[in-house]
């Protein structure tokens, strides 16, 4: 499985390390480009205590899988890995991991960035923040 939705905290660095050692042929991928998104304790000037991440089971996985396959094929990657948290998250929790593995750095870096932009603009996830004064939906993602 190269696309995963996780309902519990995960360690993205361990996930990348394990994926590389168990799924990739040693000595083929010279370049690994990785992005990890982590919950911050502030947003739009307000302190955020927690957040609920909602998704659309079935559609979300399909969107991520399509995005991953397109990146692999467009950039000739060796492989790519996408992991995303759902459920209740707290500041400091990792939310998203996108990793691109390639022979050369140019393709890995471009694919990692493009997957993040696609994920942010099309993958069906929604964030609701818990502030000291109540809850609010995050209305849109900032462009990358």
């Amino acid at each position, binding site marked *: 499985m190269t696309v995963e939705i996780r309902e519990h905290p995960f360690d993205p660095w361990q996930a990348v390390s394990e994926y590389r050692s168990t799924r990739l042929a040693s000595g083929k991928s010279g370049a690994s480009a990785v992005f990890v*998104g982590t919950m911050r304790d502030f947003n739009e000037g307000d302190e955020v205590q927690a957040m609920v*991440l*909602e*998704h*659309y089971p*079935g*559609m979300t996985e*399909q969107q991520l899988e399509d995005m991953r396959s397109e990146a692999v094929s467009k950039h000739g990657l060796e492989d790519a890995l996408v992991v*995303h948290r759902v459920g209740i998250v707290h500041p400091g929790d990792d*939310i*998203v991991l996108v990793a691109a593995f390639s022979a050369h750095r140019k393709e890995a870096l471009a694919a990692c960035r493009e997957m*993040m932009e696609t*994920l*942010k*603009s*099309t*993958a*069906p*996830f*929604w*964030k*609701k923040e818990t502030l000291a004064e109540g809850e609010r*939906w*995050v*209305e*849109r*993602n900032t462009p990358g």
Partner: protein
Amino acid sequence: MTINVRFFASLRERIGHATLTVEADGIASARDVWKAVSGESPDEEMLVAINKEYAGLDRAVADGDEVAFFPPVTGG
């Protein structure tokens, strides 16, 4: 015709349901489904998926389709 309708995030809270079943004739498009469940015109930013794929509001719907409405996505 039976359409299975799903709502997510702020639209789910606004409609007050996560899922609804619409059984009606005279429904041709996703836009018609939204009018049937909300009594309103869809707002510009609303996103639509038919059978878990993005679709335009004027895409035709068929008996048994799953039609989902949701606000702009905010993952990552």
